[in-house]
């Protein structure tokens, strides 16, 4: 795939490093080159300040208190929900807070799949899924007698829509669950097209948007998915808050996931009735501060403009592909063209295990992930146990790619 980069690497459009306090950290005089945002992103001052301000000035439990402080907390929490829903083009009723993407997918696996799937039904996922979009479906299909099937990928790491059609023609697919952007290959999947074809065949669609929402404009309504899950901590927000957008009519029919306080309308000795959407699916005290923090994160991203964020990361990825592919002994995985991929570049270095690559890069304060990236079936498809992965965020600049390339060359010298 070398030489296939056709996008000229123009200068990225953003330099927001000053907004991220952690980037001031140094290691032995070397600046922090954080290239692991696909694992978790760094947080801008605005998010840190929102968390601090919430705990310092507004903390109270929500949905219960009638005193002024509680009403403030309530307004901050539900106000953040409105802005978060608006950020991804979803109705407020269709915007449920979970701990993370994993919990959001499990919500669907328990409340929808386990109550709906029957023997003879199929859940169709892809070879490029994160474990969080594999294991819940293994358990749900095992519990219901349904079948779990995989849509393959080609050598460039892209899905085949023709193969999707063949699978759908069998008539037994009830759910298609796929990632919007691969956390390993960076592949941007044609999710709206997948939704259209799946709906035409009577199948619902769940999309794992963990990697997509932080780096490109995402419109839940325009995509048309039945379920769309994403998480705050990869999108400049705090850990501990994920989001599930879902078709409201489906949510009305589905039984609750977790049971307890806040999700009920009334409780009698033997039975209860459920609260309205979205609270029906939010049992117990919510992650209030985290939601407020995520509200600040989407405000920050909205001010940057997600179109600009996408353009910025596109240029960084194009530049990284060009530079990494020019190093002898470095192999890059995934689509060769930056147009087809998000801000993730997985690579390997001949003769050096990815762990050793990451360890040696770490000495230059260059932070990359080295592992199977919670995608072992994909690693098996690629024929490698693990890869090193550099991933980008709005606060990265071209100099970070230069530092990465220099550190890779340094690792090669150690192992020469």
């Amino acid at each position, binding site marked *: 795939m070398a030489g296939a980069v056709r996008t000229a690497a123009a200068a990225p459009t953003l330099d927001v490093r000053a907004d991220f306090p952690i980037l001031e950290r140094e290691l032995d005089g070397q600046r922090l080159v954080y290239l692991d945002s696909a694992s978790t992103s760094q947080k801008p001052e605005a998010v840190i300040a929102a968390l601090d301000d919430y705990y310092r000035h507004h903390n109270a439990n929500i949905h219960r208190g009638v005193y002024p402080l509680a009403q403030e907390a309530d307004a901050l929490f539900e106000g953040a929900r409105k802005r978060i829903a608006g950020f991804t083009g979803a109705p407020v009723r269709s915007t449920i807070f979970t701990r993370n993407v994993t919990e959001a997918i499990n919500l669907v696996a328990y409340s929808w799949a386990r109550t709906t799937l029957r023997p003879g039904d199929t859940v169709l996922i892809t070879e490029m899924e994160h474990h969080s979009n594999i294991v819940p479906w293994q358990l749900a299909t095992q519990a219901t007698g349904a079948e779990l099937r995989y849509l393959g990928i080609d050598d460039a790491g892209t899905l085949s829509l023709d193969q999707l059609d063949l699978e759908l023609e069998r008539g037994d697919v009830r759910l298609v669950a796929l990632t919007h952007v691969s956390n390993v290959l960076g592949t941007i999947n044609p999710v709206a097209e997948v939704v259209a074809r799946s709906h035409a065949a009577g199948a619902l669609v769940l999309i794992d948007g963990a990697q997509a929402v932080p780096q490109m404009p995402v419109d839940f309504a325009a995509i048309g998915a039945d379920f769309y899950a994403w998480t705050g901590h990869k999108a400049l927000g705090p850990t501990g808050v994920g989001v599930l957008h879902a078709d409201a009519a489906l949510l009305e029919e589905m039984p609750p996931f977790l049971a307890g306080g806040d999700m009920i309308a009334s409780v009698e000795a033997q039975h209860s009735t459920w609260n309205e959407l979205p609270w029906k699916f939010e049992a117990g005290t919510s992650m209030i501060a985290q939601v407020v923090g995520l509200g600040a994160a989407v405000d920050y991203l909205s001010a940057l403009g997600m179109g600009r964020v996408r353009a910025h990361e596109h240029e960084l990825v194009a530049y990284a592909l060009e530079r990494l592919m020019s190093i002898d002994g470095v192999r890059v995985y995934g689509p060769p063209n930056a147009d087809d991929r998000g801000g993730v570049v997985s690579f390997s270095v001949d003769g050096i*295990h990815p*762990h*050793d690559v990451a*360890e040696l890069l770490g000495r230059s304060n260059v932070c990359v992930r080295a*592992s*199977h990236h919670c995608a072992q079936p994909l*690693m098996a498809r690629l024929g490698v*146990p*693990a890869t090193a992965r550099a991933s980008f965020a709005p606060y990265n600049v071209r100099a970070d790619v230069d530092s990465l390339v220099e550190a890779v060359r340094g690792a090669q010298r*150690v192992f020469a």
Partner: protein
Amino acid sequence: MDDLYRDFILEHYKRPRNFGELEPHDLEAQEQNPLCGDELGVQIRVTDGRIADLRFNGHGCAISQAAASIASEELIGMDVEEAAALDADWMLDLLGIDISATRRKCALLSLKVLRHAVTGEGTWPVGAAG
């Protein structure tokens, strides 16, 4: 001089001792490093309660591969019971390098698979007797 990737570590990584298949063998086991999915296996021939011969197999990072190679040279000739009682300090002392908490799993993978083979207890049994 790098504190972790010293010459002898890299030397053992590039030319690992006692790697490959051992036929026939009396004991074998396989283990994974959950951090990265690396796999390491071991096959052992036992004579009179001693490790008469041993081979590691699999793939992994410089630390896990060098640790296995270095350990193999100590293990051949050792009493099986003595081998079963080896602890993490034995392996870390043998390596003689500073290992971060994350990389301990890499450094100790060969000890884990050895212990599995000689005690029959492991997370991924593949049949202890050959």
